């Protein structure tokens, strides 16, 4: 088990290195020039010299291979370089904003799992009843509604019913839980809906499949209560594909967050990413892409570990 984890962690390194190299070269093909965009935004007159000076200051005048070496050496020391826009270290820019995004993502995942597991189970148990149909319609809609539009609808409802809007600005949870939740709960609900919908569908179909297994029939024939069959035999086995989907969808969650943070004006990593892309801030884009890839890879590792715990037949090797 420990050996497996270590081996998997070692495999993370080449994958992330591949991502880093790919992003580096992909971004350098970019036609936009952050220097010109920035100078224009500053309202400074753009002359040949100012552009060159600025490029030199940012280290963009070096040959590509030297920039690449700098970048890789920095990465090895967990130094992501400085934002080309603000001049602050990328790690600092991300550090300032990551708390709110992680909190929203975690809340959305939690809401989704808490809703999806019971809902999917009920839907499977009462198959083809009106409960099942309702759950399925709600789930299918969850796949179709863009999370940012759902966010706008939430704001619309809050405004027209209570004439109230969540405050802008993030307060850490331990300082003021109420203020914190009143800001974060809405985006979490908006991105969590899709997550819950996907997990519910998977829970339902996977449970239906398990219920057809021979060992369930055997248990029934022995006269075991349905409730006990569910708890002892069915649920745990049905969880496997659900866990996979929850892991895979976590990436979608981050994607949804990128757009939804804009709707709620939340200054998280999603908004940072949008700004970085709009400005052509190489270093910041690289750092954020690496961060997202890392989160994704570790989520998948966690999913694989959960597999082994849920189903002892799955050997981790």
């Amino acid at each position, binding site marked *: 088990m420990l050996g497996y984890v270590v081996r998997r962690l070692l495999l993370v390194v080449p994958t992330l290195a591949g991502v880093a190299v790919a992003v580096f070269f992909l971004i350098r093909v970019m036609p936009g020039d952050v220097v010109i965009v920035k100078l224009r935004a500053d309202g400074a007159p753009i002359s040949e010299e100012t552009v060159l000076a600025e490029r030199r200051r940012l280290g963009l005048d070096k040959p590509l291979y030297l920039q690449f070496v700098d970048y890789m050496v920095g990465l090895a020391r967990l130094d992501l370089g400085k934002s080309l826009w603000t001049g602050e270290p990328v790690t600092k820019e991300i550090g300032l904003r990551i708390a709110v995004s992680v909190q929203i993502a975690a809340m959305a995942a939690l809401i989704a799992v808490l809703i999806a597991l019971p809902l999917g189970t009920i839907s499977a148990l009462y198959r083809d009843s009106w409960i099942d149909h309702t759950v399925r319609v709600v789930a299918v809609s969850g796949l179709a509604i863009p999370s940012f539009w759902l966010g706008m609808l939430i704001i619309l409802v809050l405004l027209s019913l209570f004439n109230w809007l969540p405050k802008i600005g993030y307060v850490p949870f331990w300082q003021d839980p109420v203020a914190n939740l009143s800001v974060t709960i809405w985006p979490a609900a908006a991105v969590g809906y899709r997550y819950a919908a996907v997990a519910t569908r998977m829970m339902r179909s996977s449970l239906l*499949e398990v219920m057809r297994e021979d060992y369930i029939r055997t248990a029934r024939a022995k006269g075991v209560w349905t409730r006990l069959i569910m708890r002892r035999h069915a649920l745990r086995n049905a969880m496997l594909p659900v866990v996979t989907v929850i892991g895979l969808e976590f990436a979608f969650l981050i994607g949804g967050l990128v757009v939804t943070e804009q709707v709620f004006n939340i200054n998280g990593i999603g908004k940072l990413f949008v700004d970085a892309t709009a400005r052509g801030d190489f270093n910041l884009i690289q750092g954020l892409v690496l961060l997202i890839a890392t989160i994704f890879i570790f989520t998948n590792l966690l999913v694989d570990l959960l597999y082994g715990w849920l189903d002892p037949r799955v050997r981790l090797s």
Partner: protein
Amino acid sequence: MAVVATTPAQVETLPPRGSLLWQFVRTQPLGLIGLLIIVLYVAFALGAVWIAPFDPEAVDFGAMLAPPGGEHLFGTDQYGRDVFSRIVYGARTALAVGILSSLFGCTLGALMGAASGYFGGRIDTAIQRVVDIMLSFPLIVLAMVVVAVLGKKNLAGIDVNLITAIALPIIPKMARVARSSTLSIVTMPFIDAARAAGFSHTRIILRHITPNIVAPYLIMATAFIAQAILLEASLSFLGLGVTEPTPAWGLMLSGTSADFYQTAPWMILFPGAAITLAVFAFNLFGDSLRDWLDPKLKS
């Protein structure tokens, strides 16, 4: 997603009664609903000139923020542009970008996957590593980076680079599916026969393998149209996709319209509903197509 290839034997045993369309309609009522909505949107896209009552880009300061009903079915926006007309023309953008990027991504992915499964060995390993790296990003993140990298490039009124950006994240997913389908086909005798006949690799892949992965290809392509429409709307909403004054649903929701939550909620309700309904229709149709084309998945 477990997509199993339809083998040639199965294609031949399809029941011959009635036309294909009629069979689909009879066995997949939900798919029919999806199909009807899609047909409606296609009609919007093709007949926009006749269906839309107003010019979608015409600014009318005399009719700013007019509520729905009366002359303007879905009301007007802050520039007095007719929301309904913009939604009708927006179908053009959504379908063009959605269908083209899905086809582009799926075709490239299918070829990559087929090559990967056919050649095996080092080529397979190399392609799979690329696929792994591409899969470690959420769709939108990859698309955003590509949009940023490529900029905008208009060709016949369509942003080619936007289509590339949306197609790119689709490639690895299709490649995975095509590869696993190909792996089950390459062991079949007819491939050996083609090899023995001395056909080139290209010919075997294009003439003998691709026709046999058409079913998973169609299923994936339909499913990805829904995702591509969603992605285009999200990118346009962020200001990274379609740009003003081109009518696009995501763009209609973007930026300024947020100021009008209370005064003009129709500016938010209708474009979002248009996106949701389109994605819903393609999902529904795609699901039914899968059940219909792939009897093994039925249980």
